[in-house]
């Protein structure tokens, strides 16, 4: 009963964020404190939620899947914000593209959560206070960064997986992230090389980025309030 009530309370808080965009920063801090309480309440039956308001990704393939799940949570939360209140003068085409991407990221998030089952980390608390959701350039700049980061994360994590079925799942997702990255980049600079620009695809090798979890999580850290413990992840 306690868990169900707190879960409901969390959903209310989540909804409240959209109703009160100007107080977002304060809300993020408040919700972070609340999460600590929830984590405490659940700590008896979920080892992935230590009572220090952080999450541990765990080890092995589950660790890598939790790592992916964390990134998908971040992306889904971002596009949920973007599509809840579009930046000024967003065209119908832009709204459709961003709406599609939001749907994909939510599906990725929910799919990974379902795949992880009881091993899934708790919901992350995000902090998008560095993004101006009323500004096209701020939103699309952040979207580009999230998508490119996601691509490089999956590209770098493939070799860390042991189960070929999970590698295939990661492959099914990463190419869609790359399609997103391309589409966002084309919104920023249409009909140029930017969709697969030299800043992200090496012009001499034709290779996209690949980053290890430590590097990716360090980049993502500014957007995540919850402390993420990645120390158990495989390194080879």
């Amino acid at each position, binding site marked *: 009963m306690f868990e169900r009530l707190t879960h409901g309370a969390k959903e209310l808080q989540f909804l409240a964020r959209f109703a009160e965009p100007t107080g977002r920063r304060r809300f993020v801090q408040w919700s972070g404190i609340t999460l600590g309480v929830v984590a405490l309440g659940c700590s008896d039956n979920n080892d992935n939620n230590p009572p220090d308001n952080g999450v541990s990704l765990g080890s092995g393939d589950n660790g890598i899947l939790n790592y992916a799940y964390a990134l998908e949570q971040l992306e889904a939360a971002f596009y949920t914000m973007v599509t809840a209140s579009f930046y000024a003068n967003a065209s119908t085409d832009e709204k*459709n*593209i961003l709406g*599609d991407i939001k*749907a*994909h990221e939510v*599906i*990725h998030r*929910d*799919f990974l959560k*379902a*795949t992880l089952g009881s091993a899934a980390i708790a919901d992350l608390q995000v902090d998008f206070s560095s993004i101006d959701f009323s500004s096209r350039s701020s939103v699309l700049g952040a979207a580009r960064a999230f998508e490119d980061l996601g*691509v490089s994360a*999956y*590209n*770098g994590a*493939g*070799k860390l997986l042991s189960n*070929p079925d999970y*590698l*295939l*799942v990661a*492959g*099914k*997702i*990463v*190419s*869609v*992230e*790359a*399609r*997103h*990255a*391309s*589409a966002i980049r*084309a919104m920023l600079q249409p*009909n*140029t*090389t930017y*969709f*697969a620009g030299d800043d992200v*695809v*090496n*012009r*001499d*090798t*034709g*290779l*996209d*980025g*690949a980053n290890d979890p430590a590097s990716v999580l360090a980049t993502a850290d500014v957007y995540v309030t919850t402390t993420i413990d990645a120390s158990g992840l495989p390194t*080879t």
Partner: protein
Amino acid sequence: MPDTTLFGGLDPELTARVLSRREALFRTGKMASVVALASMPVAFGVMAKDAFAQGTLPQPIIDVLNFALTLEYLEDEFYRTALETSSVIPGETQPVFAQISRHESAHVTLLEGALGSSAVAKPSFDFTANGMFDPFNDYTEFLALSQGFEDTGVRAYKGQAANLMSQDALLQIALQIHSVEARHAAEVRRIRGLRGWITGSQNDVPALQPTYAGEDAANGSFTSAAQAEAFDEPLTKEAVLAIATPFIVA
């Protein structure tokens, strides 16, 4: 010495091995093209030590890489032909296709470098598929084939990833190519007025339908159109070769 910059920061042992390998290739005349030779240090330079530490790759790995190389040969020649010998691509999208072409050429060089003397020879291609298409005179058909090749490439690499699991460095390189093909595919789809992602097995070019077969597979309990878009599906080697074969003369 351009090699000094290209190899900057790399393991000296790896550098020495790459350079000696390049000399060997030069002496045996396997790499006749000056362009290919100039790119060799880059191709080897990005590969981690374990990619060719044992000297000879296992045959199943060679087979996967040669399969990928064949597809890259096809894409590379397709774009170079369009850019260099035709005026089919309008000025507006020239930068896009020049960038795609550059990547495909780099992929060919990279895979040839990884395979060394085990690399398959480049086939002869017929991009009309025996008169079915006219891509170098008809921009609409050029775009349709481009989309088909890119989306097929994405599915082909995805289908082979598991076969490279024993070779971490090669697996990562394959993934790094795979996502570039997906960037290309999304951009070509945009130019064609489509979204960058594949909705189920939907496709507006009947002749390309095998490229999209099975893209509507269910993943978990999610069955909506968005679900089909959210996951790109793999293709088997056989399915990919069946798609490519009409364009391969010999």
